């Protein structure tokens, strides 16, 4: 992890290198935006039904975790439900069996997700591009079957019911969801901050180099596979953190959490928000979770028709996603030149598979 750039000016060069769109990292403006974001996050349960607000926060962190992998290492995981769901089960069991306070239970879940991600990552990074997506999907499916079979531990199809939300002896009585949101928000924000730190660290810059031109990174002496495994594990850990909180906020864990549709949903959210923007996932989560919540009460029975169509349009026309497109517009208006449009692997330095 030797890098010529020191960490002190990570905000400037890091943002440019990683192409985060420059929203963050220009100190004053950046801090203002961070502040605005935090105020919005704090105000969210006042505008949105608190359990839904909690869902948005969890999915946002999940999407940020996926973007860390997809946007900065160019690796599309279609099996991230394994880490989100795997952690959900561990966190749920820890809360039920040992009565762990929920931040510790979620943390334990995240550690489990990372432990699970290590062997999966080592195997999966042997292939990149499309193969990586299919292989991770298949591994996640394996976990799904294990969870489904292991009824004694996981409750099988009935799920793990009655997961308590302990908070170091404080028991919320009324309006639990409302207070839980504020108790969980710092963990979510910390998770996002961690993702941001990773991206803007020397490690993050090497990662982007391995994405854009693996051959060159290899020639410079970087162990590309090791970097990829590492970012895979970190991403899984953050996904696990989000999944653990999600499970405890709902008070149960179900097979849905490890199903491939969940992996699909987080990819959807990330792409919609904007690949390689890191914060795009937040925008994506707001849109998708609210949309699903609205459609569930609307009597329209075809969520996939809307999300599928929106997704196709985004992939065809707005590949920078909601966040990327907005940040382009803002950047243009203030007359600032902007990071070039990137594709998943901008340099396309990956050995072609076809």
């Amino acid at each position, binding site marked *: 992890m030797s890098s010529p750039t020191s960490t002190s000016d990570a905000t400037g060069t890091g943002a440019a290198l990683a192409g985060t769109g420059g929203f963050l990292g220009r100190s004053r403006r950046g*801090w203002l935006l961070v502040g605005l974001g935090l105020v919005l996050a704090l105000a969210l349960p006042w505008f949105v039904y608190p*359990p839904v607000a909690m869902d948005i926060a969890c999915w946002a962190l999940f999407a940020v975790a996926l973007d860390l992998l997809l946007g900065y290492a160019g690796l599309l995981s279609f099996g991230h439900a394994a880490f989100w769901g795997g952690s959900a089960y561990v966190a749920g069991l820890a809360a039920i069996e040992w009565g762990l306070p929920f931040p510790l239970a979620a943390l334990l879940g995240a550690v489990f997700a990372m432990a699970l991600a290590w062997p999966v990552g080592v195997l999966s990074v042997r292939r990149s591009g499309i193969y990586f997506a299919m292989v991770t999907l298949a591994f996640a499916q394996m976990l799904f079957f294990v969870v489904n079979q292991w009824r004694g531990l996981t409750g099988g199809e009935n799920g793990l019911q009655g997961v308590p939300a302990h908070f170091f002896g404080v028991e919320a009585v009324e309006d639990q969801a409302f207070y839980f949101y504020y108790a969980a928000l710092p963990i979510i924000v910390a998770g996002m901050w961690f993702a941001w730190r990773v991206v803007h660290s020397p490690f993050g810059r090497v990662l982007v180099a391995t994405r854009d031109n693996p051959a060159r990174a290899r020639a410079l002496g970087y162990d590309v596979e090791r970097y990829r495994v590492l970012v895979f594990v970190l991403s899984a850990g953050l996904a696990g953190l989000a999944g653990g909180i999600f499970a405890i906020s709902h008070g149960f864990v179900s097979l849905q959490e490890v199903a491939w549709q969940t992996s699909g949903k987080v990819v959807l959210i990330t792409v919609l928000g904007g690949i390689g923007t890191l914060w795009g996932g937040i925008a994506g989560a707001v849109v998708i979770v609210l949309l699903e919540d609205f459609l569930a009460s609307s009597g329209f029975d075809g969520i996939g028709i809307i999300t599928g169509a929106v997704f196709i349009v985004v992939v065809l026309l707005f590949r920078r996603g909601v966040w990327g497109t907005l940040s382009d517009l803002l950047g243009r208006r203030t007359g600032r030149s902007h990071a070039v449009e990137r594709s998943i692997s901008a340099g396309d330095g990956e050995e072609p598979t076809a």
Partner: protein
Amino acid sequence: MSTKRIVATAVVTAGVLALSACGNAGPGGAGSDEFTDGKLVLAVLNDQSGVYKDLSGPNSVKAVEMAVADFQERHGDDAVVEDVEVTFADHQNKPDVANTKAQELYDRESADIILDVPTSSAALAVATQAAEKEKLYFNIGAATTELTNAQCNKYTFHWAYDTYQLANATGTAVTEGGATDWQIIYPDYAFGQDMDKSFTAAIEAAGGTVGDHIATPFPNDNFSTFLTRAASAEPDVIGTMQAGGDLINLVKQYNEGGYVDQGIELAVGLMFITDIHSLGVEAFNGVNFAEAWYWNFDDENRAWADRFMEETGTRPSFAHAANYSAATQYLEAVQAEGTDDADTIVGHLEGKEIDDVFLKNGKIRAEDHRVIHDVYLARVKTADEVTEEWDYEEILATIPAEEAFKPVEDSTCSFG
């Protein structure tokens, strides 16, 4: 630095605002009024888009609306509450969605009761919310016996059917009908495992024997291997606990394999009239299964089914009738007590004996909130026996309410 301070101030302000407003935002002052918000809200939470859409779905909402209209007509100006609303939400068979929606219905839409909720995991999630919010919940669509056993609670009632009743009806009746040598094929997850146990107990109690218990993956689209294995023991009957799409796969492959010609019958643990309707009676030729209610059983059912047909253009499934029954009995309890207070209604309903279009010899057990009633063993008619659309079932036997469900002394439920 200055921006930082601004941000910090904003954060603190927002936090203070949040806390102060919270004090006011708590649940509205209960007490003085008999009806919270001056109205009664019945919420249907079910699958409006997935596999149970036909079985319950939008038409369950219709059934509840019919119950409300009938209630208002019956009581007119004497009704204790004028404003009765019906609302609904789609849980997409996802327990996390069901969980959030249940909270939202209770809190935001001030629902006094949630009805239906198919899919066991979703049903159990909603039961947890009902207990927490101390609001009523009548489950109709889910089959898990957990609702009236380990995970029962004071506010949850299980109205229509469950795995024990399904297995018991089919297992007992088919065995007593002479098919004593069984092979069981069941999907290897909670529902299938429960069904396998209940089936085996029922068959053995009726004097039959079960050879192999063949577990299959779930979901699965290829049952040929399992059928071959089961048939190689040359049983009288193969019992299958598959449901939905998997059941259709299995029945198709059973037909394809020509096992009927070898004299091996098929008994189905869980099947709905909507399955027969979508695949046609030919696909299910001669299959035996348990039915909780059938629209063409007697004149009372038929009259109601005709009204339902006018409203929806289709015949009701047992779930539709059960939703109507549950909503009706709830409304009558409210009328009798003059309040929507959940504890009062629970007290009113416990132990009550009921006869309505759905509940024949019905009774709400006080001990575990299992609602018991007569159930049936049905056979799918052959194509030439069918005289009109939806006329698919012949009722072979009626299983009296007292024998149909798990005995109350075996329930592990305690409302403690």
